[in-house]
């Protein structure tokens, strides 16, 4: 029987940071997998290793030990250029602080994703427009981000992550800078995306956010405590 490989698989992954002479373990022997189309919340208190796990999954960081397999590719064998290539094609990021370029219009911010992933030039603007329609910002394409509300800015960031059609969307406290109403709108958008089959990993300390997810991975002191 052939089963599709999980999108993300961590095998006894540890990440230790050296702070002077002492080494601080941020993640210890974490093993888990995320299947295609799953909506997973990673929750835990500050310093529990949530962001470290997200950075490892996003190929922004390398594990100290253990292996990480992304869509069947053992990422520990890849060089920096190949990891950057994978990021550009298979991973979308959404950050707590949005990270939009203030001097570029909404659509230019979305187009930024396409220049690093080799998308053919004629396809870029249609793809960006489609992504902006998807997040409900078709009427804001030529605005500067500074003219938008916080919720709208985060939806621009989500469109930027979606435009390359990644295998997985990684969100780090996506509602952390938003009030409950606009934050709720973002979570509704995630629900829609999940319904369309996108794989989502959301790091949060907010239980309301984790309630939207299919399951939650609880972290404490760098260890996976429970998967619920």
């Amino acid at each position, binding site marked *: 029987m052939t089963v599709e*490989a*999980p999108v993300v698989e961590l095998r006894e992954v540890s990440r230790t940071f050296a702070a002077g002479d002492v080494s601080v373990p941020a993640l210890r022997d974490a093993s888990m997998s995320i299947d295609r189309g799953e909506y997973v919340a990673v929750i835990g208190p500050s310093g529990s290793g949530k962001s470290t796990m997200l950075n490892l999954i996003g190929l922004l960081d390398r594990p100290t030990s253990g292996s990480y397999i992304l869509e069947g590719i053992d990422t520990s064998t890849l060089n920096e250029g190949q990891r950057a*290539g994978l990021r550009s094609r298979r991973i979308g990021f959404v950050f707590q602080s949005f990270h939009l370029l203030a001097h570029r219009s909404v659509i230019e911010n979305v187009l930024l994703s396409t220049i*690093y992933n080799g998308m053919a030039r004629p396809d870029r603007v249609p793809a960006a427009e489609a992504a902006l329609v998807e997040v409900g910002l078709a009427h804001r394409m030529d605005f500067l981000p500074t003219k938008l509300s916080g919720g709208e800015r985060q939806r621009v960031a989500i469109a*930027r992550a979606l435009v390359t059609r990644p295998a997985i969307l990684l969100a780090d406290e996506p509602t952390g800078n938003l009030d409950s109403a606009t934050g709720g709108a973002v979570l509704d958008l995630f629900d829609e995306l999940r319904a369309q089959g996108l794989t989502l990993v959301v790091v949060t300390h907010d239980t309301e956010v984790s309630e939207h997810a299919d399951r939650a991975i609880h972290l404490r002191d760098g260890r996976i405590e429970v998967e619920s």
Partner: protein
Amino acid sequence: MTNVVVSVGADAVAPARMSPRDLAAEAVAGIFARPGRTVLTVLGTVLGIGALVATLGVAKTAGNQIVGRFDELAATSVVVTNERGFFFGGGDVRIQIPADAEDRLLRLNGVTAVGAMGPVDVGGALVRSVPIPDPLAQTEFQMSVYGATPGLLGATRGALSTGRWFDWGHSERADRVAVLGTGSAQRLNVTRVDQQPVVFIGDEAFVVIGILDSVRRQPELLNAVILPEGTAREVYGYMSAATVQIEVEIGAASLIAEQASIALSPDEPTLLRVQKPPEPADLRRDVEGDVNALFLVLGGVSLLVGAIGIANVTLVSVLERVGEIGLRRALGAARRHVAGQFLMESTAMGLVGGIIGASMGVLLVVAISATRTWTPVLDPWVPLTAPLVGAMTGLVAGLYPALRAASLEPVEALRSG
């Protein structure tokens, strides 16, 4: 659950890539994100390149101008004097400039006119014209008297206001004739020669046959009484010319200067003093050298300051855009893409500065030339190379900031931005 490792094609792990066109577009967007700052940054390079171009242009222009002026008169003039021989032996061993100096020198290729002249010792005799009974006017003057050869008029590029210059016939027959310089004619109150006016040097009478209006060389002739050489010899025991004025073709001055003293005095050529014009090439080099050395240093300093300005602003820009750098890395930019973007931004600023600076430098050269009514001269490679120098400046200035940007860890960059 069974884990199946899917077969992975080469495309799946292809490294990140970015087209040069996208790189250029991102760099341009980065520059225009803060236009005011970009303008101020570029200004340093503009000044540096402008100063360099203007310096090279002005030096070239001035060098050409000076040479051009010398070409007119001095470059065609060689003067031989025997005053040095005179100092040697108190007069006895003084070298004689031969009476046939004109013939000897005209044989040299490149000589166009020759004339010899020398002061005539008239024993302190005063010069007067026909006395007019006017008790208030001075009628007798102390004047210099020169003996001259017929070629002198041509060799000094002289022009007569009236009458004629003497010829070999006058000289050989020792005719009692004289030509007055315009200054002496005025003092002696001689204005026309058709009535054959007479001037007296002491008790000797000379018929004035011409009045010398102007000369381009040997201007002392204008205030003198000029006698044919033969006449001076006959009347006053004039021995030898003291000065030989030679006019040469352009470019022949150095050669003729060497040959003239040998032609005039084959046995003792070193006793004659030869004045020749400076070589045009040497002169141009000297002028350009003087101007260049000083201002090229200034231009170089401005350029260095401009480079430091670009480096500084690019570095500040990197520190300000740490978050953007983290974002770009997360979106799939490799380190070299980030470095390339900042390098291209600084290089573009240097290039723009170089283009504007070169244009302003050229305009400055033209403006300076216009105020002096000079012809602006500029080597074509100067304005063409200047933008490249500007771009190189930007490239070098951007190296360190670009490396700083590339060395940022994406996780750190995203957190602090």
